[in-house]
C-alpha cells in the first residue's frame, strides 16, 4: 500500500480558492480523516486524489509516483460516495463486478471475487437484487464492496455513513474500523462529523476554508486544540470559550471577570508570554467534562447558578451562570437541580486551554503545541 503525499496543492474555481497550499502525507496503510464544516474543501481533496478534478497547482504522489495528471483509471483508487452511486440498472452482483469487468477480468475470477467480497460483507443474499430493492444499510455495504473488490491502492470515502440512521451509523462505523484493520489499505476518509472522525481515525486533519487547521491523532486534537476553531469543532457538548486576561504575580493566572484561575506552571514549555510581559487578552477554553458540578458548594469549590439541566441518560448537560459567563458542564445522569439553584463547580486546572484573543492560536500552557501542518 502506498502513502499519499500532497505537495503544495492548490485548487481554485475561477478566482475562488478552495484548497490553499495543502501539504500533507497520509501514511502507508493509515486511516486518515479530513474533518470540517461543509464547504471547507474536504470533499474536493478526495476528488483531487481520485482524479475527478484537476489541481490548479502542486503535485500529488502515491509513494514516489506523481499521479497529478493521471486519469482516475490510471491511479488505482476506489471511492465510496455519500450517495453510494450504485448503478441502478445493474444487479448487486453486476455492481460489484463492474470494476473487474472494466478491467477485462475473466468470468471465473469475477465470480470468485464477487462471492469473496459478498461473504466478507455479509451480502451474499442480495446478489440477484437491484439497488432499488435494497435498504440504506444494504446499499452502503454494496458500495463498500464495489470499492474493496479490486484491492485498490487507496480508498477514498466521502461521508459514507451520513445517509444512515443514527443506530446503523454507529454499528457500521465499528465495522468499517474492523474492515480497515483487516485490509490495511491506505484510507482517506471525509466527514463533517467530529465524533466519527475521532472514533475511526489514526490521524485527523481539521479543515476550515480550504486549509488545515491542525493535524494529529484524535487524542492530540482533542486534548491540545491548536486554535479556537478546532477547540469548538471537536468535542461534544462544545467547549466553553470565555474571554479573560492573562497576568502574572509572578505565577501565571487568568482573570475571568469575577474569578482568578491559577494556571499550572509549565516549566519546560517555551512560553511565548512571560512574567516580564504586560498582561494580555486571552480566550480561556474549558471542556464541559472538565467542570465538576457539585450539589452544594464546598470550601474549595467555586459556585454557579443553574439555568437548565438536560438529562441525556448516563450524564446530564447543565447550563450554568458563572459570574458574567454562561457555561456548559457535564454532570451525573441523575443530577437534578431547579433553575436558579446555587451549585458548586470545580475545574480541572491542568485541562484548561488558553488561546490568544487576537489570533485564536493556542498558548502552550498545558502541553506541546502540535505542528500546524506537515509531518
Amino acid at each position: 500500500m502506498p502513502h499519499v503525499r500532497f505537495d503544495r496543492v492548490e485548487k481554485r474555481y475561477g478566482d475562488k480558492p478552495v484548497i490553499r497550499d495543502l501539504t500533507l502525507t497520509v501514511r502507508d496503510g493509515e486511516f486518515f480523516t479530513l474533518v470540517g464544516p461543509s464547504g471547507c474543501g474536504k470533499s474536493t481533496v478526495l476528488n483531487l486524489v481520485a482524479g475527478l478534478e484537476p489541481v490548479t497547482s502542486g503535485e500529488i504522489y502515491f509513494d514516489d509516483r506523481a499521479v497529478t495528471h493521471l486519469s482516475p483509471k490510471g491511479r488505482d483508487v476506489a471511492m465510496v460516495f455519500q450517495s453510494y452511486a450504485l448503478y441502478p440498472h445493474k444487479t448487486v452482483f453486476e455492481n460489484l463486478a463492474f470494476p473487474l469487468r472494466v478491467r477485462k477480468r475473466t468470468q471465473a475470477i469475477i465470480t470468485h471475487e464477487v462471492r469473496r467480497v459478498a461473504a466478507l460483507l455479509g451480502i451474499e443474499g442480495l446478489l440477484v437484487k437491484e439497488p432499488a430493492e435494497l435498504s440504506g444499510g444494504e446499499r452502503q455495504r454494496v458500495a463498500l464492496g464495489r470499492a474493496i473488490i479490486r484491492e485498490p491502492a487507496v480508498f477514498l470515502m466521502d461521508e459514507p455513513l451520513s445517509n444512515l440512521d443514527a443506530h446503523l451509523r454507529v454499528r457500521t462505523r465499528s465495522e468499517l474500523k474492523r474492515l480497515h484493520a483487516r485490509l490495511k489499505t491506505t484510507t482517506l476518509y471525509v466527514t463533517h462529523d467530529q465524533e466519527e472522525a475521532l472514533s475511526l481515525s489514526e490521524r485527523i486533519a481539521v479543515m476550515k476554508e480550504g486549509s488545515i487547521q491542525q493535524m494529529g491523532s484524535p487524542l492530540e486534537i482533542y486534548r491540545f486544540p491548536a486554535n479556537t476553531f478546532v477547540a469548538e469543532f471537536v468535542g461534544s457538548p462544545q467547549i466553553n470559550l470565555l474571554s479573560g486576561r492573562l497576568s502574572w504575580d509572578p505565577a501565571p493566572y487568568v482573570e475571568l471577570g469575577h474569578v482568578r484561575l491559577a494556571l499550572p506552571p509549565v516549566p519546560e514549555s517555551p512560553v511565548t508570554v512571560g512574567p516580564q510581559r504586560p498582561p494580555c487578552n486571552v480566550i480561556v477554553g474549558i471542556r464541559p467534562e472538565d467542570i465538576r458540578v457539585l450539589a452544594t458548594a464546598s470550601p474549595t469549590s467555586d459556585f454557579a447558578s443553574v439555568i437548565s439541566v438536560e438529562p441525556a441518560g448516563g450524564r446530564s448537560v447543565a447550563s450554568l451562570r458563572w459570574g458574567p459567563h454562561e457555561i456548559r458542564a457535564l454532570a451525573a445522569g441523575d443530577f437534578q437541580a431547579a433553575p436558579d439553584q446555587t451549585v458548586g463547580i470545580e475545574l480541572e486546572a491542568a485541562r484548561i486551554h488558553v488561546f490568544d484573543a487576537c489570533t485564536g492560536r493556542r498558548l502552550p500552557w498545558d502541553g506541546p503545541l502540535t505542528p500546524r501542518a506537515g509531518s
Partner: protein
Amino acid sequence: MTAGPARQAMLRATLALVLTWALSPILWQALTSVKPDTELVILPPLLPAQPTLAHYTVLFEQHPFNQVLLNSFAVAGLTAFAALALGTLAAFPLARLPIRGKLLILGVVLGCSLFPAIVTVGPLFIIIRALGMRDTWWALIISHTTFALPLTIWVLANFLRDLPEDLYRAARVDGCTPWQGFTRVLLPLCRPGLAAAGILAFLFSWTEFLFALTFTATEAARTVPVAIVLFPGVHEIRWGEIAAASILVTLPVVVLVLIFHRQIVHGLTAGAIKG
C-alpha cells in the same frame, strides 16, 4: 378539493367537447375511407350503407403505395437513428464534461430550430442538387436530421443532466474512460430519454411535407404525405383514396405514441421538476 357531482358533470362535458374537436376529423376520414364512391359527396347518410375496403385496395393496386410507405419508414427510421446517434454524442459533453460556453452552445442549437423550414429549403435544394442526392432517401434523411437534432439534443442533455452526477464519477473511479462511463453507465439509464427523443424525431420526419415535396421527384424517394397530395387525378379529387392513405399513415403514429406516451412525457419534462 372535492369533486362534487356538478363539477364531475362539467369535467365530463368539457372532456367530451375536446375529444369531439380532436377526434372528429379523424373519424370523418375513417368513414370516408370506407364509403363507396357514390356516397362520398352526399350527406346523409353519415354512415355508409355498405362499408368497403375498395379504396385501400386501390391504393396498393393502382398506386405504388408499397414503395411510398417503405420510403416513409426508411426515411423516418433512419432520421430517428441518426438524430439519436448524433444527439447523444452532442448531449453527453454538454451535460457532463467541463466545456466553456455550454449555455451559448445550447442557445445556438435552440436558435437553429427556430428557422422556418421555408427559409432554408431553397439553399438546401441547391446543395442537395449539387451533391447529386435529389430524389434519394439521403436528401430527406439529412435535411430531416438537421431539423430534428436541436430538440433531440435538448431532450437528451436535460435527461443526462438529471442523472445523479455521482454515477458518472463512480464509473470513472471504477476504471472507465469517459467514453466507457458514457456507454456503460449513462446511456443505459437514458433509455426513456432516448425513446422520447427518437419518437419525436421519427414523427417529425414521418409527417414532414415541405422538404419531402421539394427534394423528391418520383416514387423512388417520395414519402406518404407528398404521395397523398399527388393522388388527385386529372379531372377529379380521389377523396376516398386520400382518406384511406391518411388513415394508413396515421396508424403507426398512434401505435407508437400509445406504446411510448409515458416516456415521451417523461423525456419532455426532464429537468422541469426535481425528484
